[in-house]
């Protein structure tokens, strides 16, 4: 169905919902690369005005990727909850934006609404929102998940400790873990991107992490970010806490990642069967990021932000502990500069939260993007205000294996301090028992004799 809008005698026509969504998207380099972006500033606003008048019900009738062609479309349509949708079923996209910002849309109401929202509705409304709106609405959401600790409570900010090493050397990895723990990081997960995906190497690292965690009785979880098939291969002979996978928002993107929904279902079941979580059963860790579908030549004519939000439908199906949008990793051909990276991160965080996901953000950039630590400071502060569940903690913000810059352990402490945020409660209690943090949440000076400094990796 075509959509139209007239501005001063000039009529803009948008062939279908997919095109309308793309043209209404705030500018980013990836949509220009795919040729989907609006041709002028005026066309973009015309598209946004048109989109504002589209009834939400339209999104249930007009699939942006055909139902027959794409299993994620089928997942979205088949799991849509009409009862949850009922209270807003008469809204247009524009009315949804105004209502989301009203006081009526409080935390409980938004939690109840989330199964009634589809990714496309959420993507659409986010395109009409300013950065301020994205922060405001996200801040009202609360998504809490549990494995060995409690992540996502309001007033808390957790950190994935990311101790990567270019050759996966256990001693090198352990050194970064000790550094991070002594700086109060690691409550979201201790998660390593392995330099090699070999099952044997992954098993070794998992044993190392598990041994360290149990030796010091740390209330957290570990994860090696290997391919889901590698995790499934070793799951019976290695201490797997969380199963990781990168996911995308089209069936074709996921094929390029070597996955499909049934495979994820199988991995989810396998991880649940280990029963390793002590206080909860959220066992999956997903990573996403705008641009992955285009990069895999699998975007199906859908703009990169809408593709991203569709990937949240995949995540939502498996009740993850953590969903991490790795926002600036993909490079300037998708998100060119600090402005685009910041906007994309706020969109991802808000859209994920509205859909009921425990969103964290890898606040990051590569050296060929027009961005630097100042941009990351801005984004970190904004996401802290927005109530982001977790961020990355990388020694000195410099990942020596993946060759990009993220946030440091110090950055996490900054955000917690200026915004009055705390670590996950169980982890915070552990930090205090260890003498790493005092009861005001301030970091303590530890001595040379601290037991963590006596750890030696095998």
């Amino acid at each position, binding site marked *: 169905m075509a959509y139209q809008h007239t501005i001063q005698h000039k009529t803009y026509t948008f062939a279908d919902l997919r095109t309308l969504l793309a043209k209404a998207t705030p500018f980013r380099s990836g949509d220009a690369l795919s040729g989907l972006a609006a041709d002028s500033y005026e066309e973009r606003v015309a598209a946004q005005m048109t989109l504002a008048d589209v009834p939400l019900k339209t999104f249930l009738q007009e699939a942006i990727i055909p139902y027959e062609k794409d299993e994620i479309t089928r997942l979205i349509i088949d799991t849509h909850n009409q009862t949850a949708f009922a209270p807003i079923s008469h809204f247009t996209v524009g009315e949804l934006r105004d209502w989301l910002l009203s006081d009526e849309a409080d935390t409980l109401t938004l939690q109840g609404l989330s199964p009634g929202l589809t990714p496309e509705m959420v993507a659409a409304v986010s395109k009409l929102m300013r950065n301020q709106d994205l922060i405001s609405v996200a801040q009202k959401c609360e998504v809490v998940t549990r494995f060995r600790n409690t992540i996502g409570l309001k007033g808390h900010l957790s950190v994935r400790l990311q101790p*990567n090493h270019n050759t996966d050397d256990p001693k090198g990895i352990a050194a970064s873990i000790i550094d991070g723990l002594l700086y109060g990081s690691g409550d979201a997960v201790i998660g390593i991107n392995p330099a090699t995906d070999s099952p044997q190497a992954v098993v070794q690292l998992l044993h190392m992490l598990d041994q360290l965690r149990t030796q010091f009785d740390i209330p957290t979880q570990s994860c090696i970010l290997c391919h889901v098939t590698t995790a499934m291969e070793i799951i019976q002979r290695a201490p797997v806490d969380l199963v990781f996978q990168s996911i995308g928002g089209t069936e074709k993107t996921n094929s390029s990642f070597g996955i499909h929904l049934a495979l994820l279902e199988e991995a989810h079941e396998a991880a649940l069967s280990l029963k390793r979580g002590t206080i909860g059963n959220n066992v999956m860790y997903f990573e996403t990021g705008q641009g992955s579908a285009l990069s895999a030549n699998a975007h199906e004519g859908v703009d990169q932000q809408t593709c991203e939000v569709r990937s949240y439908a995949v995540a939502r199906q498996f009740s993850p502990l953590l969903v991490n949008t790795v926002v600036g990793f993909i490079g300037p051909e998708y998100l060119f500069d600090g402005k685009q990276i910041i906007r994309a991160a706020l969109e991802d965080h808000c859209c994920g939260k509205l859909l009921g996901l425990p969103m964290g953000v890898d606040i990051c950039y*590569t050296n060929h993007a027009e961005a630097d630590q100042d941009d990351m400071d801005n984004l970190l502060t904004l996401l802290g205000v927005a109530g982001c569940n977790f961020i990355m903690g990388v*020694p000195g913000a410099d990942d*020596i294996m993946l*060759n990009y810059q993220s946030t440091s352990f110090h950055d996490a402490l900054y955000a917690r301090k200026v915004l009055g945020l705390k670590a996950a409660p169980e982890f915070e209690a552990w930090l205090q028992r260890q003498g790493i943090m005092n009861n005001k949440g301030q*970091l303590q000076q530890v001595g040379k004799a601290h037991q963590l400094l006596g750890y030696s990796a095998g």
Partner: protein
Amino acid sequence: MNKELPHRNPIQEDPWSSLKAFTTARIALGRTGTAIPLREVLSFKLAHAHARDAVYSKLDITLLMEQLQPFHTGTLLLHSSAADRQEYLQRPDKGRRLDAESIKTLRTLPAALLQKDVAIIIADGLSATAMNIHTLPLLTQLLPMLKTAGISAGPICLAEQGRVAIGDEIGELLKTKMTIVLIGERPGLSAADSMGAYLTFNPRIGNTDESRNCISNIRREGLQYAPAAGKICYLLQEAIKLQLSGVGLKDNYEETRQLKS
């Protein structure tokens, strides 16, 4: 007048700097409040500045032409269809294709320069700095090796604003069996002058990464020139033998070398 603050260093050092022996990660930085001490902030900034300068660096054409002269291979100056660095960064598709003038240059070459075994392409990629430093020393090792191995090479192509896949169009027009694209890699904070080498058998526009073999991290502190050139030459010979490159061509250079010695 207010009293001067007592002169006391506000930086809390971390008592685990001995762990730095195990990793090049930025650990045990110390802190002032929750902030990273200034000396570490500036050292990070300097590394990032090197990386940024490398991204915006340019091939030193005069220098390279002069350096390549003694090889007597002939040198061609080519340009991708990305007009400048800004466009190069945002439009990877344009960095993969030649501009009209470069196509004309290649189409009007005398037949004697065509149909060689390999085309050698020097592209700036994301660090022209790397290419300005490493092109001469690497080719000084590589060209004699090719000669010994009986692999013929066409004129050396300098490609500005080029990505790896620009080699496919060049190889197609030069009608070579293979291409080797030497290119500046994306700078990291630890190295801004790293060169990569990509080998493609049967270069054709539209080839994808699965059809290439890559040798990475060529620089003084990384993979040295002699072993890098040895590896490239080995892979070229294997590619001719197997009539393919990419996932089907395994890099057993080390094993082969060990057997020989």
